[in-house]
């Protein structure tokens, strides 16, 4: 699935009906289209909110240990895609190979009980996930996220960076094969961001497939193995960052992203 999404990446789909046919075809042939080696496969994913199409025919495969960045302008469908993969939203059409309990979910807004301590938050969610050894899982997660020293501190009193680490830790509790992070570094200062990415890279290095969305294109360039560019719910580009640079002839990643969007607009 690497490379351009179709022979002409800037070509708008003919119409919604064509997109619908594509999705149905993918649905019908879903079994055959899946990659046997993929940690996560998505086929023909569509999402409509009333008349508005938020996501249209998105396909992707993600390997174990791979980091895939989802980028796009506001309203491109990044959060919708990640929400469907995480099981927060249900798709209008299409399929995801993993059920929500197999996907670690790190939402954009830290989803934590600020009155509880770090350890209490972890313990609660570990218990809800029916962990066999709740205390062991909590201890391991505190160690992995470097929050051991803050275990008994209330989450509401933590810095934004540490709160986000707890947020990530909750996503990792069930040791999921896939972890989905929605703009994980938003609202963090550079040192906090750096520490968070170290943690995320470590997660990928341990074998989890990592799918994250971001508005900070340098992060996508720096940390992602591949990049999925969404525009108005459609896949505009899926491939390595270097391929995007080569495709657009730009030296800077951010410039390449903008050029891609401009070329698509011009092609309409």
């Amino acid at each position, binding site marked *: 699935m690497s490379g351009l999404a179709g022979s002409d990446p800037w070509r708008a789909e003919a119409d919604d009906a064509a997109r619908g046919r594509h999705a149905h075809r993918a649905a019908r042939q879903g079994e055959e289209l*899946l990659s046997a080696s993929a940690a996560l496969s998505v086929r023909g994913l569509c999402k409509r909110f009333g008349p508005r199409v938020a996501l249209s025919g998105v396909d992707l495969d993600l390997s174990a*240990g791979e980091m895939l960045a989802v980028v796009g302008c506001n309203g491109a469908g990044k959060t919708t895609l990640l929400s469907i993969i995480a099981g927060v939203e249900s798709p209008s059409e299409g399929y995801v190979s993993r059920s929500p309990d*197999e996907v670690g979910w790190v*939402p954009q807004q830290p989803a934590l009980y600020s009155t509880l301590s770090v350890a209490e938050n972890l313990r609660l969610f570990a218990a809800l996930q029916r962990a066999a050894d709740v205390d062991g899982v909590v201890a391991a997660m505190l160690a992995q996220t470097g929050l051991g020293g803050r275990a008994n501190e209330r989450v509401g009193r933590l810095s934004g960076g540490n709160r986000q680490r707890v947020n990530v830790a909750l996503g990792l509790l069930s040791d*999921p094969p896939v972890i989905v992070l929605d703009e994980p570094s938003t609202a963090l200062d550079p040192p906090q961001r750096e520490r968070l990415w170290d943690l995320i890279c470590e997660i990928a290095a341990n074998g989890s497939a990592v799918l994250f969305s971001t508005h900070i294109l340098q992060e996508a360039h720096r940390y992602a193995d591949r990049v999925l560019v969404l525009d108005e719910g459609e896949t505009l580009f899926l491939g390595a960052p270097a391929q995007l640079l080569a495709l657009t002839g730009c030296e800077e990643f951010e410039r390449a992203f903008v050029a891609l969007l401009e070329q698509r607009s011009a092609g309409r």
Partner: protein
Amino acid sequence: MRSVGALLRKDALILGRSRATAVVLLVYPAVIAVLIGLAISRAPGKPRVAIVDLTPPGQSVQLGGRRVGVSEYVDALFKQVDAVQVATRAAAEREVSSGEVLAAVVIPADVVSKISSGVSQAHVAVIYDGDALKQSLVRASIDSALAEANLALSRQLRSITLQDIDLLLKGGVSAAIFGAPSRLVGLAEIPAQLSALAVRQRSTAAAQELRRIASSTSYAVRNLQLSRAVLRTVSEPIAPTNVILHGRKTPLDAYAVVVAVTISLMFVGVLLAAGALALEREEHTLTRLARGSRASWWPTLRGRSAPRRGSAPRRGSAPRRGSAPRGESAPRGGPALVSIGELICAKALLAGACAFLLALAMLAVIGAFVPISWGRAGLWVVALGIGALAFAALGLAIGALVSEVRAASLLAFLVSLPLAFLALVPAGALASGIYDALNAISFLFPYKASLQALDAAVNRASPAIGLPLVHLVVLSVAFAAIARVALARVR
């Protein structure tokens, strides 16, 4: 149920950590309970009223040949109020202004002459102060006291009059009727005596005249006898006889206890449930908890073990097997950490349990001040328990509609407070159409049903406890369903 238990422990921990909430929850009902208890048990039975008696000492009303002292009227008035004797009108006005007394009654110097005249009504001045509500309350109390005093005086005057009528009819020794001979011949005896005299008369004309007078006297006697009953009726035309159609007469203080406890049950239940559910949205944890639950009916995913990290999904694994028909959505999901039903259950149990325990404690504390039947404690528990769950369900429906705790609390107050007032509006206080509309609104919320259930449990009031309990159960299910639908839409 493990999830419900974990959520309950978490919510209890959060509740315990929020000192302000805990203090309000514990202190508020306790303070209210004690205040109500004191207010009910130590309420002044009689209004405190200043009385200024300007009549000259010893003045009495002349009635026939007898005298009724004005002091008897004042005494009657004193019995109806907590009287404070004051010498002058100015002093009385000062007492009223300072709030020492609710009102002052000034009995003017000419009251005796007015009553004695028999043609003009005597007046007493009543001095009030305060706002419209206080004036209304005081006026009602004073009017009632004055009416009682008037009635007492009237009864006394009637009694004297009846005695005089008796003397006129039956005759006897009398020193009371002014100008009467010391030995009165009763009018009732006169016809017989005149008839006897007529028989002894030789002159037919004289005999006929005596019989005519005897006949007229008989007529006067019959009417005078009738006047006794007329006098009784005129002095007190309507005497109330109280009949309770059904149920048992509930003392006002026992009913006030039930109202106060139900209001506390409502506030704690509704506010806690609404706040606890809104907190899940405010902290963004609802999504994490209920993630995947939207498609949890997807049968093939139930009970499937999750592949561990690094393992690739099997070809044709559950989410894609048995693909959805063309054109339909493709549901996917797994067991959520917590289903929406479990979440609602946990919140309802927490809020319901807190409301129940506090209301029960409140009832027990007030029970120390007001006599209530402890033998019916089992029914209290049932009424409070089901009422608490109904209020919690209402709170959940409110909490599911908003995403912030503050907004949930505000909305809970805005909904709850008018409901309590609506349920207390008595029949007949409003036009029937409006009353029916208010009744219909009250029917849709748990306050009135809870009040009826608790009143039946504590005071054996009507209607019996069964119907309100069924009503509460139906409302609980309905509000829980609303909360469930709302949460499924917003999570």
